[in-house]
């Protein structure tokens, strides 16, 4: 079902946890479909230099959260905003079709976190 890369991220997920006083937090998903992802970012000088996640969800949801944090680490906000769910799936070398929609939302959570950061900034 899942390829090795996904299983590797599932069994050793990177950057699990929360950031105290994050620059932004984004949450997507809902309990009905069974996936809730939360991304925390710390932004300094336009660069995401810390990112963590917490996910309730299936293997694909956890792996995509994990791989996203790797992809985002050290990126500028502009670069990070261009990352899509599709990029995440590609980075994982493919997800099962059934998982493409409901479990592959990590990029959406990231975008929400960036939005949150911008709103916080504006305050």
């Amino acid at each position, binding site marked *: 079902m*899942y390829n090795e890369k996904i*299983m590797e991220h*599932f*069994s050793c*997920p990177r950057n*699990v946890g*929360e950031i105290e006083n994050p620059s932004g937090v984004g*949450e997507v998903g809902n*309990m*009905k*479909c*069974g*996936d*809730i*992802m*939360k991304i925390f970012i710390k932004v300094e000088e336009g660069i995401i230099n810390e990112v963590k996640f*917490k*996910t*309730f*969800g*299936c*293997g*694909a*949801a*956890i792996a995509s959260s994990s791989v996203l944090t790797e992809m985002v680490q050290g990126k500028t906000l502009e670069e990070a905003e261009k990352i899509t769910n599709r990029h995440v799936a590609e980075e994982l070398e493919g997800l099962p079709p*059934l*998982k493409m929609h*409901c*479990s592959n939302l990590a990029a959406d959570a990231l975008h929400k976190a960036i939005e949150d950061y911008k709103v916080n900034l504006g305050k």
Partner: protein
Amino acid sequence: MGYKMIYLDNAATTPVREEACEEMLPYLKEQYGNPSSIYRIGREARNAVEEARERTAEALGARSDEIFFTSGGTESNNLALKGVVRNRGGKMHIITSSIEHHAVLDVCMELEKEGHEVTFLPVDRYGLVNPGDVEKAVKPNTSLVTVMAANNEVGTIQPLEKIGAVARENNIIFHTDAVQAAGNIPVDVNKWNVDLLSISSHKFNGPKGAGALYARKGTGITPLWQGGAQEKKLRPGTENVPAIVGMGKALELAAGELPEKIKELTGMRDRLMEGLLSMEEVVLNGHPSRRLPGNVNVSIKYIEGESLLLSLDMEGIAASSGSACTSGSLDPSHVLTALGLEHELAHGSVRFSLGKGNTMEEIEYLLNVIPGIVERLRQMSSVYRQNKR
């Protein structure tokens, strides 16, 4: 490779037991005759099929001319329900439960689309159908009641005798999906008052590819297929001789060993339930005692079933879940939902189904590793810390 597995998913499928496999092998190899052929190896194949029919009948308390071989439980259910409805003709009313397997539930929904009326009875929080509800649901044009003997997810055993009595009093044909019951609890078509009963070989340590429909003498059933004259034309097609032989043997043995098996499984089941429920925020699904001897189903809060299964698999443990991620659809199990579970609990459900060959050591091993897995997934979970605050 040193890969050792603890198989706790016997409700999904079971290993073929040695004795059944051994009886099958000749029919896979040198005894390959077609039972419809008149020469020697054909007649021998016919005899083997008829002996399997007798064994199957015996185990169910039925007569051998009331047993029809199929390819499995799904086929038996479809044949029973559609066969009766089409035989009756006209529009009618059907009563079923809301926790049936898809091979009954979806058939009923299909019949609904065809213009028949279906009542999907609710169940209580343990998954029990109330026989009084069946009685109340009866209408003048009710022609079929179908309620499963034991549920595949939560293991709840229905009061079939009473439901069957209601059906009988009202002159309604009564079918039960006994796919999970056969080989796990005593099955008796007369005690249960059933007219039709479905079983599936691979659920009781027989091979995949065989099942049977018991149909009480005189029950009118229209076949789903046309073709040769096999199974009195109710189910044409060359018989799957090896699988039928294997099923007959497996069921005969299972029926003989039943008291012993029930005792053993119940012991392991109760230990496993107790161990799991001793973890924080774990709840039992289904009935505390009126459940299949091998079924344990719990919801582990704050974690999602599939990720639990994957983690268990990495420890060599095979189990199942009612989470949406494993149901092949976007919704969690309709059974858990019908029992009143919220989505979170349904997604966090895990089913361990014990069977022949499991040991108490395996249970203890599982109970040793699961707390670590649960803790790890909870630490990762977006809803854990939150709810603990």
